[in-house]
């Protein structure tokens, strides 16, 4: 019997790189096709607004928005407290306690508020979208939609995206205030600042545009979470493991893209002088 050739590590490495590139290319191709279908679905809904599943949109608005509010408020408040502690430790060294308000305010409004809300939404909504669509695929509901002449993307993705575009900025606004409240708590309990001085300082340095920048990021994050969550659902294989993998992939891909988008937007904001 002929002996099989010993594995060549270099060939093996190139083989793995090739296969990985193949997967990424296929993924990108699917994403482009998905975006194309999404654009067609949006165009159809603009032309025939009756096609929008308003009831579904309200359901997702409740699921992604109001139901997420307690956890968003809790996490953002604690984030404000943590940041407050860290800034307090540094500010105390140079006797600049009042700058805790600046540090917490800018960090929460420009970065951590939108980011934490995006992470929470990814865990709650993005994974739910992928699991829901994946399960619909297993149950042949997607096939049923197609044979009834519906565009699955228009039917399932558009209400979710619209709900996310409304819910995420609102969550960010509430999360921002909760984060500021966390910093405020540390400022007046640990740093010996008076409530009036802390609030005055915050109002002095934090402009409405500071919050608007974060909210604008939220719109980009919401789009990423909804589209990636739904796309992974459509990519899911028609079995239980496939749905599980799609859900995991939705969360991982969304977080990765959120971080990339955050970096790009932050750079753009600094270029524009914000």
């Amino acid at each position, binding site marked *: 019997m002929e002996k099989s050739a010993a594995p060549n590590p270099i060939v093996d490495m190139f083989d793995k790189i090739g296969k990985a590139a193949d997967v990424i290319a296929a993924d990108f191709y699917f994403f482009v096709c998905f975006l194309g279908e999404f654009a067609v679905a949006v165009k159809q809904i603009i032309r025939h607004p009756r096609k929008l599943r308003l009831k579904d949109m309200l359901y997702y608005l409740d699921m992604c928005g109001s139901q997420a509010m307690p956890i968003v408020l809790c996490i953002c408040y604690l984030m404000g407290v943590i940041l407050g502690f860290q800034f307090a430790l540094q500010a105390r060294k140079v006797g600049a306690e009042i700058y805790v308000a600046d540090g917490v305010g800018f960090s929460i409004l420009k970065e951590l508020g939108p980011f934490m809300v995006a992470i929470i939404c990814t865990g709650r909504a993005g994974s739910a979208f992928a699991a829901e669509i994946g399960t619909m695929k297993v149950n042949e*509901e997607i*096939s*049923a939609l197609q044979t*009834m002449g519906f565009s699955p993307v228009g039917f399932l993705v558009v209400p979710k995206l619209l709900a996310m575009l409304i819910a995420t900025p609102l969550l960010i606004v509430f999360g921002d205030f909760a984060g500021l409240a966390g910093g405020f708590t540390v400022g007046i309990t640990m740093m010996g600042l008076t409530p009036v001085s802390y609030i005055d300082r915050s109002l002095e340095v934090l402009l409405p545009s500071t919050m608007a920048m974060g909210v604008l990021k939220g719109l980009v994050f919401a789009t990423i979470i909804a589209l990636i969550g739904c796309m992974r659902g459509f990519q899911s294989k028609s079995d239980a493991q496939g749905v599980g993998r799609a859900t995991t992939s939705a969360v991982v891909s969304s977080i990765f893209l959120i971080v990339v988008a955050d970096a790009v937007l932050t750079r753009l904001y600094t270029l524009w002088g914000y």
Partner: protein
Amino acid sequence: MKEAETIVQVENLSVGYGKTVILENINFSVKSGEIFGILGGSGVGKSTLLKHIIGLYPPLKGDIKIFGCSMVNCPDWKKDELMRRFGVTYQGGALFGSMTVGENVSLPLETYTDLTKDEIAERVRKKLALVDLQGTEELMPAELSGGMKKRAGLARAMALDPSLLFFDEPSAGLDPITSVELDRLLLRLRNKFGTTIVIVSHELPSIFETTDTVIMLDKNTKTIAAEGDPKELRVNSPSPWVHHFLNREENDAPDDNLKNMKQEFSYASGK
């Protein structure tokens, strides 16, 4: 006598996924008012063939014409229009889990007709009554049994009064009594409304009870092994495999897959 109109025409069809060919050179036609069966063993590709016929997947080769229009070479808008002219029921019913039974049935009516809410509610009530599901409008699909889900799926498929219905394994997983009831429902639909019906199944009692013509798919040749009246094929088929299948007899000459399975089993068990 005028010949019945051809409703579904399948020409030189090859189906599969990627580079894998599952079935090839499939040719058949379904006439108006006919109950047509697609038969074959498990894993032969019956459901895959159906999914290609109804336009869910593009075929590797060949053409499918429904009501004289090609499902393969038509623009998407035309395909969507064609899809609205026939109904499909799936193995598990494929009801939308987030909607009530009534909402499931009313969905196509709300989207594609200008009926008022009252008219839609009345139509939904009638369709559900037709499948013996009166009063289930407010139930969620999770509250229905398997047979009820299938019937609710059928009510939804019939919502727009299509003249052509496709059924994927209608009797699978049903108890004998429910299965017989479903068979009678299919016959009633054909006899009362002249509906053309295509059934994918391997449930022989249902096939003999309902279908006028069947095609039998063979896993080894990947094509049609026999076509005709199932009762005649059961008696007169020249193919031993078809004869065995329709008479539920053990095949003396096991197919290659079975041989391979036996071989793998003997390797695995060390025999």
